[in-house]
C-alpha cells in the first residue's frame, strides 16, 4: 500500500513541478525514477513474483504516459508512447494473454506508432509549440479533476482490505494462445467479430475516397 501511495505521490509532485517550472525534464524524470525504485526496493518483501513485476511495469507505464504529455519534444513524446505500449504488452503477458501481448506490439508499437513517427517527421514540429498549459479555466479544471482522481485512487487503496496487489485470475492451459482466442472469435463472438470487420472495411474505403477526391 505504501508503494502505490508513494507512486501516486511521486507522480503528483512531478506533475506539479513540471507544470510550474520549465525545468529540464530528463534529469527530473531520472531523479523521480530513482526515488520510485528506492520505494519499490523498500517494499519488495510484500511484492513477490508477479506482484513485484506488475508494480514495476505499472510504474514505468505511468511514468512513460506522463512523459508523453509533458515532454517538450514531440518525437520524444512518441518514443515514450511506444514505451508505454510495450508496458501494456508486458501486462498482457503477465496476465497469460501471450497472443494479445505480441499483437499489441505488432499493431500498436509496430504499425500505428510508425505512422506517428512518420507524421512527426514530416510536420517538423517546433519544440514546445503549443505545449504550455493554458491559463485560467484549463489549469484550474486540471487541478480539480486531478485531485478528484487522486482522492478516488486513495479511497480504492484504503478499502483494498486483504486483496492482493495483483490477481491474474483463473487461466487454464492453452489460455491466451492464438488457438484458444481464434476458437472464441469464430464461435461465441462471431457476430461482434464480423461486425468489427465490416466497420473496418467501411472506414478503409472511406479513407481512400477522402484521400483520392482530388484525383477524380
Amino acid at each position, binding site marked *: 500500500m505504501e508503494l502505490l501511495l508513494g507512486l501516486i505521490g511521486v507522480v503528483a509532485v512531478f506533475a506539479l513541478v513540471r507544470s510550474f517550472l520549465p525545468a529540464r525534464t*530528463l534529469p527530473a524524470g531520472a531523479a523521480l525514477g530513482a526515488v520510485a525504485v528506492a520505494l519499490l526496493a523498500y517494499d519488495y518483501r510484500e511484492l513477490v513474483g508477479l506482484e513485484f513485476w506488475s508494480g514495476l511495469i505499472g510504474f514505468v507505464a505511468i511514468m512513460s504516459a506522463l512523459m508523453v504529455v509533458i515532454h517538450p*519534444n514531440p*518525437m*520524444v513524446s512518441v*518514443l515514450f508512447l*511506444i514505451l508505454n505500449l510495450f508496458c501494456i504488452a508486458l501486462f498482457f503477458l503477465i496476465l497469460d494473454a*501471450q*497472443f494479445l501481448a*505480441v*499483437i499489441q*506490439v*505488432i499493431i500498436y*508499437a*509496430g*504499425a500505428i506508432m*510508425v*505512422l506517428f*513517427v*512518420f507524421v*512527426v*517527421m*514530416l510536420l517538423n514540429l517546433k519544440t514546445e509549440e503549443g505545449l504550455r498549459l493554458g491559463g485560467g479555466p484549463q489549469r484550474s479544471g486540471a487541478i480539480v479533476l486531478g485531485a478528484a482522481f487522486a482522492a478516488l485512487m486513495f479511497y480504492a487503496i484504503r478499502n483494498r482490505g486483504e486483496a492482493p496487489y495483483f490477481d491474474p485470475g483463473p487461466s487454464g492451459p492453452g489460455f491466451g*494462445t*492464438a488457438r484458444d482466442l481464434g476458437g472464441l472469435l469464430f464461435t461465441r463472438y462471431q457476430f461482434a467479430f464480423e461486425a468489427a470487420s465490416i466497420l473496418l472495411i467501411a472506414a478503409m474505403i472511406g479513407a481512400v475516397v477522402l484521400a483520392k477526391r482530388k484525383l477524380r
Partner: protein
Amino acid sequence: MDPAIVRVLVESAVKIALFFFVMLTAVAYMTWVERRVSAWIQDRRGPNRVGPLGLLQPLADGIKFLFKEEVTPPHVYLPVYLLAPMLIFVPALVTFSVVPIGPSLGLLGHRIALQIADVDNGVLIVLAFSSMGVYGVALAGWSSNNKYSLMGGLRSSAQLISYELAMGIAIVGVLMATGSLRLSDVVAHQIEHGWNALYQLPGFVIFLTAAFAETNRMPFDLPEAETELVAGYHTEYSGMRFSMFYMAEYANMITASALAVTLYLGGYHVPGLARLGLPETAAALVQVLAFCVKVAFFLFVYVWVRWTVPRFRYDQLMNLGWKGLLPIGLAHILWVSFLVLKGWV
C-alpha cells in the same frame, strides 16, 4: 531456488552466450564474404592482404572501428541520436532467438532444444521485432537533423510499412499449412509433408522480395542510396556508432535468411538422413550443418542480387509492393487454403 528453474536459466544463458558469439562472428565474416564475392563478380581481387585469403580482414576492421574518433555533429538531437543505433541492432539479434537451428539433442542426460526460445507465438514474435527495426532507421534519420538523413529515414519507414504487409501475407500461407505459430512445428510439418517452397512458390518469392526490402538491401536500398542521399540515414554517424548500423545490416540479413530457410526450405531438415541410421548426436550435427549451409546460400544470394539488379526508383518500389506483391499474396492465400481444404498439405 527450484533446481528445474536453475537448469532452465543455466541452459538458456549458455545458449544465448553461444548464439551471441556465433552471430557476431558470422556478421564479421559476412563483411568479408560480401567484399570477396563482390570482387569475384566484378572480376577484381577483393581484400586479400590481411591473413590468408584476407581472412583476418574483419578483425582489422573491428580494431580500426574501435580506435576511430566518434564525431558527434553539433546539430543532432543527442538522446535519440545515441539511441537509434541500438534500436536497429537489438531487434536484428533478438529475432533469431526463436529460430530452431537443429533438432532437440540428448546431452548429459537432458533433452536440449537447439533453439533459444521455443515459444508458442514464434512467428508473431519475428514479425513484432522486425517491425521494431524501422524505428532505428527512422529515428537515426530524424535525430541527425540533416536533409539527406531525414529523406533516408522517411523512405525507409514508408518502405518497411509497405513490405511488412507483403511479408505477413506470405507467412500466412505457411501458417495455414502448418496450423501452428510455433517455428519448431513449422519445421516438423515440413519434415513430414515436404518443404513449403515446393508448393508455396509465390509465397516464397514474395517473402524473399520483402526480406530484401526489410533489410534495405540492394534493389531496395533507397534509404541509403548514395547517388541521391550521400549515405541516407547514417550520414552523420561515425566510428563505432556507424559500425553498429553496418553490423545490424548483416545481422538482419542473417536473420532473414534463417527465417526463409525455416519457413520455406525445411529448416534443418535433410531429406533421406533418417534412412542412413546415424547415431543421434551425429545426425543432429549434420542437420545443424545443413541449416548453416542453407542460410549461407541465402546470404550468397543477397550479395549476388546486389550486383545483378539495379536500384528501384521510389515509385517503382511502391508499385511493386502495393500493386504487385500484395494482390499476388492474397491470391496465394486462396491457393494455399484450397490445398488445405483438399487436405493435400
